[in-house]
């Protein structure tokens, strides 16, 4: 193999698609490379397009909202775990900008068809899907698929569209939850892998867009291929690290043990950080009961996914992907449910109906607490809703997906429910999005991160677990605010850069020098010589642009909020006993480091420094 001669565009495919669902018009345009140089791709470029073109005051579920699918310049290039696609829109769950990404094999098919982005606007009169076969792009009637689960849709569409090329044909679709506008509905790649968070599936449903079906035969040009081959070495390095070894063995469920040990696995709606039945829902328990085999996203050597199946002696039936750690928390410890079969079943329901397991679980935990407080009755819900009641939980998850009975209300999210029944404090999330599986009282940096995330309680716009829990590159006391504002800023900015490349964030979380490694890969793919300062600045720019999107909608310091349970109620016995999140003090320091006003708004100087108009 010899190095490429830099001929033509490397990394990006060079074309974007614009699909107006109201008129049915499909247009091709060159990828805006001036924007791509500033904002890269995926989360970065998508946010920039949304920021420039959307009437941000629009109702997220109205035809005015835009729904943008993207990959990044490193997607499918071997730049280490590079099989991701991203969805950008204005979230119906939080009212903010959001980015939600997923892996599987759809991103590869979408990118090799020749597109960096597909921008959907408007609303189709009847259900439609977008069919992409390289240059042949068409909107087709999806009435026959409306109502199908994600897995059914995936199978049926492949058979219909490309019966002879099923294995090359990939789908991204919504299930009934997205059709029913559940505010935390997601979009499923390959039927199972969800861009789950922020309600992107509800936006797709509101547009009557059931699916994208893609097949591609084009290539992604790589400027310095020899450099890229190092990704193999990096992957091997990760897999020989202490944490990497167990990650490869157990996938994300290993964190049940890791976070349980430091009192940081949210339990019973965040009252505690340790679930006494954790061993019943751990990675080991999953091997004993449900795991069939290991699986990876396309172009990833880490293989953290798990194919699972409920055993024949279970009262539940089904097979699919997961559950991941986040789901073992959201349907497990968070509800005090120790029945791995029930958790796995709820995971399958969420995947097949196309909705987020995290917000579904956080909504259920808020409802259990409201029920315990006597603010909502069994008559209203339709049945008692106690902690530990796995059958009630499974029933409610199904009702939410199908928008039946009380499920209609619950499908509007935990924040809505908690407000409606007069106890807003029981919703464990920020900006309307439920927290992922990290207890901020036991890792307070994560609390600051959740509070300042552009899309609320999400773990994918940054995650402090690397420093606060795993001690990479060096340990840091997870229980104090000391040094956390700087850590959170660095982590958020670097994560924005990684995600804009079109990569999974996991390798970054393992590496001591993630920014350096991924800057080298970026340069190798696109044939540039960016310095670390420059690529860091790209991440910071993306994060600030997201902040500005929200600021223009009136989001300020008051929205960088954590529930009083985290800031006022002391952590129970164990590691961090008595601890709370010192949010306000951290926010002061954080805003100053970021060059934002005391009210959390980026200053004119900062925006000008970053080149944000």
């Amino acid at each position: 193999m010899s190095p490429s001669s830099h001929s033509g565009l490397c990394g990006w495919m060079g074309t974007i698609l614009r699909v107006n669902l109201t008129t049915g018009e499909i247009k091709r345009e060159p990828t805006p490379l001036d924007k791509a140089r500033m904002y890269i791709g995926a989360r970065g470029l998508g946010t920039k397009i949304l920021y420039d073109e959307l009437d941000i005051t629009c109702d997220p579920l109205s035809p005015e909202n835009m729904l943008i699918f993207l990959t990044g310049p490193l997607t499918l290039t071997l730049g280490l775990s590079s099989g991701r696609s991203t969805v950008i829109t204005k979230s119906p769950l939080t009212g903010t900008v959001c980015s939600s990404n997923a892996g599987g094999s759809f991103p590869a098919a979408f990118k090799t068809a020749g597109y960096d982005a597909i921008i959907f606007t408007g609303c189709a009169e009847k259900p439609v899907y977008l069919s992409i076969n390289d240059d042949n792009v068409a909107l087709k009637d999806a009435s026959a698929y409306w109502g199908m689960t994600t897995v059914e849709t995936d199978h049926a569409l492949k058979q219909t569209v490309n019966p002879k090329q099923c294995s090359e044909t990939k789908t991204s679709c919504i299930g009934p939850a997205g059709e029913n506008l559940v505010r935390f509905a997601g979009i499923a790649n390959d039927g199972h892998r969800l861009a789950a968070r922020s309600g992107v599936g509800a936006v797709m449903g509101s547009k009557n867009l059931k699916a994208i079906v893609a097949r591609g035969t084009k290539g992604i040009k790589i400027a310095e291929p020899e450099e890229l081959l190092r990704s193999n070495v990096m992957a091997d390095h990760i897999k020989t690290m202490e944490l990497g070894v167990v990650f490869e063995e157990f996938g994300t469920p290993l964190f049940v043990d890791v976070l349980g040990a430091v009192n940081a696995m949210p339990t019973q709606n965040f009252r505690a950080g340790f679930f006494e039945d954790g061993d019943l829902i751990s990675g080991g328990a999953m091997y004993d009961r449900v795991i069939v085999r290991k699986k990876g996203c396309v172009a990833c050597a880490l293989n953290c996914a798990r194919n699972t199946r409920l055993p024949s002696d279970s009262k539940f039936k089904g097979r699919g992907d997961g559950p991941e750690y986040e789901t073992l928390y959201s349907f497990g410890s968070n509800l005090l449910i120790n029945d791995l079969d029930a958790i796995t079943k709820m995971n399958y329901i969420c995947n097949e109906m196309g909705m987020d397991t995290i917000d579904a679980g956080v909504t259920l935990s808020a409802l259990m607490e409201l029920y315990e407080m006597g603010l909502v009755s069994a008559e209203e819900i339709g049945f008692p809703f106690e902690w530990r009641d796995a059958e009630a939980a499974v029933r409610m998850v199904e009702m939410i997906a199908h928008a039946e009975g009380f499920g209609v209300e619950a499908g509007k999210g935990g924040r809505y429910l908690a407000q409606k029944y007069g106890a807003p404090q029981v919703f464990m999330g920020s900006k309307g999005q439920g927290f992922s599986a990290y207890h901020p009282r036991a890792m307070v940096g994560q609390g600051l991160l959740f509070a300042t995330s552009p899309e609320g309680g999400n773990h994918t716009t940054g995650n402090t677990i690397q420093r606060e829990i795993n001690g990479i590159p060096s340990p840091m006391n997870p229980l104090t605010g000391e040094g956390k504002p700087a850590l959170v800023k660095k982590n958020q900015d670097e994560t924005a850069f990684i995600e804009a490349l079109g990569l999974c964030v996991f390798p970054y979380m393992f590496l001591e020098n993630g920014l350096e490694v991924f800057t080298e890969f970026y340069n190798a793919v696109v044939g540039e010589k960016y310095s670390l300062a420059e690529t860091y600045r790209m991440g910071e720019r993306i994060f600030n642009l997201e902040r500005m999107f929200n600021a223009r909608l009136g989001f300020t310091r008051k929205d960088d909020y954590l529930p009083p349970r985290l800031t006022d109620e002391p952590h129970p016995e164990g590691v961090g006993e008595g601890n709370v999140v010192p949010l306000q003090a951290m926010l002061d320091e954080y805003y100053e480091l970021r060059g934002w006003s005391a009210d959390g708004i980026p200053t004119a100087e900062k925006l000008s420094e970053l080149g944000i108009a």
Partner: protein
Amino acid sequence: MIVFEQERCTYCHLCTLYCSYTFSKGGVVEARPSVARIRVAQNEDDTIYAAHVCFQCPVQEPGLPREAASCLKACPVENCITRNPLTNIVAINEETCIGCGKCVRACEYQAVFLADGKAVKCEVCDDPLCVKACAPKALSFAETDEAYIENIAQLYKEVRL
């Protein structure tokens, strides 16, 4: 030969991607699965994976004349698909290939592909990147025996692309 162990595969397609690096054309290296000579299939339940790669249809019993592979028999062009008598590797001559696809359809193991109008198949690189790339070590560079051929032939017939 490139030897595939089903149990280890994770459907990550790194073999396909690295293979496409090797066979990029026109002086530009591309990540381009559609030119790869190894392709990964899954069964409908998503519980069995099969990296389809040519195992060179070797002779079944030592001492007997070499049996022609289906692709070789199907090719209408003289001296296009040939078997190297020393290495036993079946190769396609890109110059003479007319892209008719008969070999692709003839291979019962789905190990011959059309890429940019030419038939392509694994002709076993000296230092195969697919083997290097395979993170779960499902691929290796080894001699094959009868039991392996029997198993892999069955797998390729069952788990289709």
